[in-house]
């Protein structure tokens, strides 16, 4: 396999890991943000958590693996992005810690104040993480100041530009909708109806945000002038998919509504990664300073070894993760007797 082919392959593989992460953890984040608002009683909150209980940790590993794969395949990308977005990533990690620990600890004490505190930590952590990731991804697409030594020369506030914030807000609102659709699909009884009602309201916010993000993408990125692979109709397709979601929500086609927000997330990410390709970090200082899959990658030998390992194990992981979802496919009700605490 040629070096260029391997570099492109690893770009695609990392893109797949991110897409998988956003699709899966997207509804986890949504469920987490909705938890204190949708669940009134303790059993209801437990039921909401249990919809993602067996799987959220596995979903989060997609992010960890994306990080590890970036380190292994594109060390310069990993080094520049992680050190450059230092405070944003610090807050992301804090968000992930707060919510991870809260899922595990909230039911282990019967003090209502204890549970309320952890429920809010779940919500805050589930908000912080997609907000920061959305902001970071928008900044990747529009470019950030990087000098000739592959060093990020901005600071935390450089990231909080209008397009970055639009990205953050959009990711949060799409995940809220994705989470509400997931809950409608997984819950039973009154909670399911409440989730559906919420999903109708959240749809309006998400659709607006998505339209704004798509429109501003034509202003703030080089999507129109870019040489090389063109994202084509991907951004438009992703907007259209988002817009038709409401039909499924209204007609109570719960599976389709969830698939539809899922496909929207996937299309958005495909648009993002094709827009980036073959660049991995765009320099707003000078396009020549941009990091690409060619100047940021590991050696051919390392990429070959890692490819063999990935080709063997990624299908195995997909198989057993998919099997878990099949195992826990049953709807969850807030009925005390059937609830795993």
């Amino acid at each position: 396999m040629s070096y260029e082919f391997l570099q492109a392959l690893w770009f695609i593989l990392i893109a797949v890991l991110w897409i998988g992460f956003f699709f899966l953890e997207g509804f986890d984040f949504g469920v987490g943000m909705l938890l204190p608002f949708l669940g009134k009683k303790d059993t209801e909150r437990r039921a909401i958590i249990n919809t993602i209980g067996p799987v959220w940790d596995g979903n989060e590993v997609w992010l960890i693996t994306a990080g590890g794969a970036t380190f292994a395949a594109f060390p310069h990308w990993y080094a520049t992005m992680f050190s450059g977005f230092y405070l944003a990533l610090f807050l992301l990690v804090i968000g992930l810690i707060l919510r991870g620990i809260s899922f595990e600890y909230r039911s282990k004490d019967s003090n209502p104040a204890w549970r309320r505190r952890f429920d809010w930590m779940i919500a805050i952590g589930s908000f912080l993480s997609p907000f920061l990731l959305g902001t970071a991804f928008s900044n990747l697409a529009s470019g950030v100041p990087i000098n000739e030594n592959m060093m990020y020369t901005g600071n935390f506030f450089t990231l909080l530009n209008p397009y970055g914030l639009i990205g953050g807000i959009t990711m949060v609102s799409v995940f809220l909708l994705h989470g509400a659709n997931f809950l409608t699909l997984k819950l039973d009884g009154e909670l399911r109806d409440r989730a559906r009602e919420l999903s109708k309201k959240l749809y309006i916010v998400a659709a607006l945000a998505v339209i704004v993000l798509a429109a501003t993408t034509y202003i703030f990125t080089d999507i129109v002038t870019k040489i090389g692979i063109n994202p084509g109709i991907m951004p438009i397709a992703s907007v259209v998919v988002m817009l038709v979601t409401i039909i499924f929500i209204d007609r109570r086609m719960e599976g389709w509504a969830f698939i539809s927000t899922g496909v929207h997330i996937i299309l958005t990410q495909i648009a993002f990664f094709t827009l980036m390709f073959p660049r991995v970090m765009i320099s707003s200082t000078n396009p020549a300073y941009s990091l690409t899959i060619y100047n940021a990658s590991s050696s051919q030998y390392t990429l070959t070894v890692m490819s063999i390992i990935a080709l063997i194990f990624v299908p195995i992981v997909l198989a057993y993760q998919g099997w878990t979802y099949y195992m826990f496919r049953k709807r969850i009700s807030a009925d005390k007797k059937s609830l795993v605490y």
Partner: protein
Amino acid sequence: MDPLSLSRWQFGLTTIYHFLFVPLTLGLGWFVAYMQTLYYQTKDEDYRKMAKFWGNLFLINFAIGVVTGIVQEFQFGMNWSEYSRYVGDIFGAPLAIEALLAFFLESTFLGIWVFGEGRVPEKVHLASIWLVAIASNFSALWILLANGWMQHPVGYVINEVNGRAELVDFFALITNPKGWLFFWHTIAAGFVTASFLILGVSAYHIYRQQNLKIFKTSFQMAALVGLIASVLVFLGGHTNGQYMYETQPMKFAAIEAHWETSQPASFSILTIGDLSGKREVWSIRVPRVLSFLACNNLNCEVRGVNDIQKEYETLYGPRDYIPLIVFTYWSFRSMMTVGFIMIALSAFFLFITRRPYENARWMKWVPWVIALPYIANTSGWILTEMGRQPWIVQGLLTVDKGVSPNLTTVDLLISLIGYAVVYGSLGVAMFYLMKKFAIAGPDAALHESIDGESEENGDMSEALPVGR
């Protein structure tokens, strides 16, 4: 404080904190899996309760290990970007493999184990806890191979054009003796940590004559495993020491505060240095023991710090290559002393279980042994990582060249204080829960809803399921 020192403090503190929880996960998983297997084979309800009780403590500890692990994976890039650029071609691979092969397995099957009881076939439920134990230990292997490479780099060439180390022999990377010696030492230490937790908590209940059957069985099991594992820790450490003498002679000499080359070399029981920490003032020594530690031979020559410093200056250029000896010297002594105490204690516990011991008054004090492995584990890592200084990768890159150049003191103060606050609160919550559930014993209804409806006190198995 400059960004370099703050980054070092942050890495050191977050790593020590993370490793407070890891060894228990490594060891306790096997115990829970074994207990559940006993239940599966005998259908004896006591084994089920045992597996549940220790499994619940396992989960409380596991959660904090997982979330602090995210920081570990990210901070190579965040704080040590130049290190990441220099070694990413090699070091990134085991990290990615760890995530792909171990983390997915561990997290997915833990979810099945926690939520799957009664929903998945019993065999699958049993297999899932075994997979969790295997996967967590497997993840330790990959991260220790990565760390082993930093201590003893193998299978690489320096690419002068790119200015970085590149992998040329993956097989050498995954068979690095340093990594496997760490693995042996660490996994055995995991078993010891779990054994001493079980010994301590069981003693608490035995002393109070509660659930005697469950806790006496646990106590005996842990005493036996604790003895075998603590001896294995010692043997692994001793072998590791000899390999260290060959590959990292400076670290070896620094651990012993062995300043001048001598043959045969004496072992220091107590050395007092001057205020700079770089010169010996006074010491008590046992002749020839250090020679034995270095090469299993009472007569061999052991090179001293000063000679190695001279050699490194000619090899790598002038600078100070001596680690902070006061740390290496004392952390080694604290690790070893506690290690020997644990061997003696577990042998003693195993011996007394041959006769009735449940009424012994000293059982009251046994819960304190839980602290011992934590002292040894932490000392061990301080020793091995501080002994590597000033190198970030032995012989290739020094720590000061690995730090992210764009970080400011303010960035680091924010993150360092942030981690301190969050980790501190997590630690308090975790300690509170561990203590509560350890004391509550296996019959406590572990979780319930708090909606204030009348409590149904139906079938015990309804109340027992362990929740997340």
